[in-house]
């Protein structure tokens, strides 16, 4: 027996904290973590719809909760996470889409990402304009 019968203890490198070892992995994990922000916001909205169905007092309670400094702070973080999600979503889009061609030429990945970011700006401006129009 070469390995001395059962006493063999091969070295296995721990995988704990693997993503902290490389900036690329850190960015990947940060990107995946935006899902937490999306979930929290979905819960905030779902609670709002639920409170709205319960009547005026319940709805005003939800509005008051949203006005608390902690809620505003939370939403600033959620906004940053959503913006990062939007950024990375279109950044990796060229890799998730099949190759696109226009007049026999491949559309460069950077062009796909850029059109996505332009779309984000356009829908954001449109949404804000809609809110302004609706309040007047």
């Amino acid at each position, binding site marked *: 027996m070469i390995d001395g019968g059962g006493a063999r203890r091969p070295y296995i490198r721990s995988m704990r904290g693997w993503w902290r070892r490389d900036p690329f992995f850190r960015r990947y994990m940060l990107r995946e973590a935006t899902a937490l922000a999306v979930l929290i916001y979905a819960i905030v909205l779902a609670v709002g719809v639920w409170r709205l169905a319960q009547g005026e007092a319940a*709805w005003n309670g939800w509005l008051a909760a949203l006005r608390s400094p902690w809620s505003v702070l939370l939403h600033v973080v959620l906004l940053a996470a959503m913006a990062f999600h939007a950024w990375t*979503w279109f950044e990796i889009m060229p890799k998730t889409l099949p190759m696109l061609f226009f007049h026999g030429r491949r559309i460069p990945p950077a062009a796909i990402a850029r059109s996505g970011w332009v779309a984000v700006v356009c829908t954001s401006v449109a*949404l804000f304009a809609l809110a302004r129009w609706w309040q007047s």
Partner: protein
Amino acid sequence: MVAVVKRSHAPVFWLLFGAGGMLAALVGPMLVFITGIAVPLGSPLQRELLSYPRAFALAQHWWAKGCLLVVVTLFAWHAVHRIYHSLHDLGIRTGTFPKLLCYGTALVLTVATVASLLAIGF
């Protein structure tokens, strides 16, 4: 002879993930800004924007009702799918319980939102 193919349900969840991710990218940042920052602070939008009569009238309108439903449910299904698939990266063993917890959260949010929107009426 009829071939029995056990179809995977993965594409359904992947489609919800993809649609939700796209919607969150396009409208998520501005929605968070409007409902979480601009209206609560009263600037640059008025607090009156989401007063009870206005919010209720909005949620009664079939078009806005549809938008609310789509936003809440797709955001939820997108998020839980991504969180579930990140568990492996964190060294958490995936299995029936984490799966039920993740997708169950999205299901509960979906059912609660549908019920609330129906209760609000048309």
